[in-house]
């Protein structure tokens, strides 16, 4: 049976009927065509699908769309746009923090949550804080650099 869902996505209030088994990731990608949220493993391990739920970084593949009812979701599409990138996106660009880009939307969501948390981020603890996002290309160094650079501009 379809379930009615009211959710705010990237600032826009939406009302949709969805089957309960639909994950938030599939809702975003297939129903809203917001394909910036990527799916790697679909069981919580790779972090590619990370989005912000009421400002907290969560796995969109491990959340049913109906669980987002009454809440606010921010995806990479809601973070900045060409010509008006966020400080974190600009730092990713400047530092070469992506190659194929598959992992990037997830790292941006994780990075955004870390920046918004207001905690002081150090180079020593970032590898641990980023352990929930996998990247097969960059070797992580430039991603750590980019997040530290964005910390400075916050």
């Amino acid at each position, binding site marked *: *049976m379809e*379930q009615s869902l009211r959710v705010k996505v990237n600032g826009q209030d939406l009302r949709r009927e969805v*089957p*309960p*088994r639909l*994950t938030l990731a*599939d809702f975003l990608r297939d129903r809203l065509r917001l394909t910036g949220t990527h799916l790697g493993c*679909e*069981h*919580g391990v790779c*972090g590619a699908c*990370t989005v912000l*739920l009421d400002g*907290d*970084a*969560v*796995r969109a*593949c*491990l*959340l*049913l769309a*109906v*669980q987002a*009812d009454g809440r606010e979701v921010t995806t990479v599409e809601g973070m900045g746009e060409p010509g008006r990138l966020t400080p974190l996106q600009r730092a990713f660009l400047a530092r070469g923090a992506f190659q194929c880009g598959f992992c990037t939307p997830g790292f941006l969501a*994780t990075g955004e*949550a870390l920046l918004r948390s207001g905690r002081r981020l150090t180079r020593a603890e970032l*590898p*641990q*804080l980023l*352990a*929930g996002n996998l990247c097969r290309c960059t070797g992580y160094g430039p991603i750590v650099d980019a997040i530290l650079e964005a910390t400075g501009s916050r």
Partner: protein
Amino acid sequence: MKSAAFDYERPTSLPEALDLLDRHGEDCKPLAGGQSLVPLLAMRLARPRLLVDLDRVPELRGFTGQAAGAMTTNAQLERRAGDLPPVIAAALPHIGHFQIRNRGTVGGSLAHLDPAGEWPALALLLEAELTVESKRRGRRTLSAGEFMRGPLTTALAADELLISVSWPRWPAGARWAFAEVARRPGDFALAGAACTVIAGRTRAVVFAVGPLPQVAGDGGFEVTGDLHASAAYRREVGKRLLDRVMTQAAI
């Protein structure tokens, strides 16, 4: 990797949730943070006909320094680390990644009962009490040992919910240590141990080595091998970690 179809209910009170479980029994599953259940659904290792989402049941929320409602997330507890027994505060950052802890709950960790989970080990170590409730039989309180039956198996009946977990007051001067080995931060432990020394009494627990967390005694402990680590590795590393936490806690 797509779940089979199921129905979905989102009760807004405990009686309503217990009534749903009472009526649907084995056909339904409670949904907490979904960090273990949603993957099981996607892999079709679980195929309930109905999910009962506990997110809006206020009776399962709330936290004091000595007890947590089942729906308390690990992230919420981390933010109150100063009010917790220090051994719980030390273990929390090891429970998956912070994104997982934003959703994963104390109740879900205990009810899922992964032998490598930190919460089952903490519950055994601290001699926690688990309060469970069903519509027909009402409330009962179980010790951690009574609650844990085997890997991924608890004393919860199909119509029963875990309501809360409580632990004794942490006395001034009590000592403790916690250690685990995982391949990367946030991965499930390949072996772990924790120890408390309270009023001169030492209690140590080893976990992620066998079918359940175990209180360390003279008789050694049960080990199992799998894809991630052999039984011999777990026996050796478990022994070393136990030695380490018992030494650290004694100092």
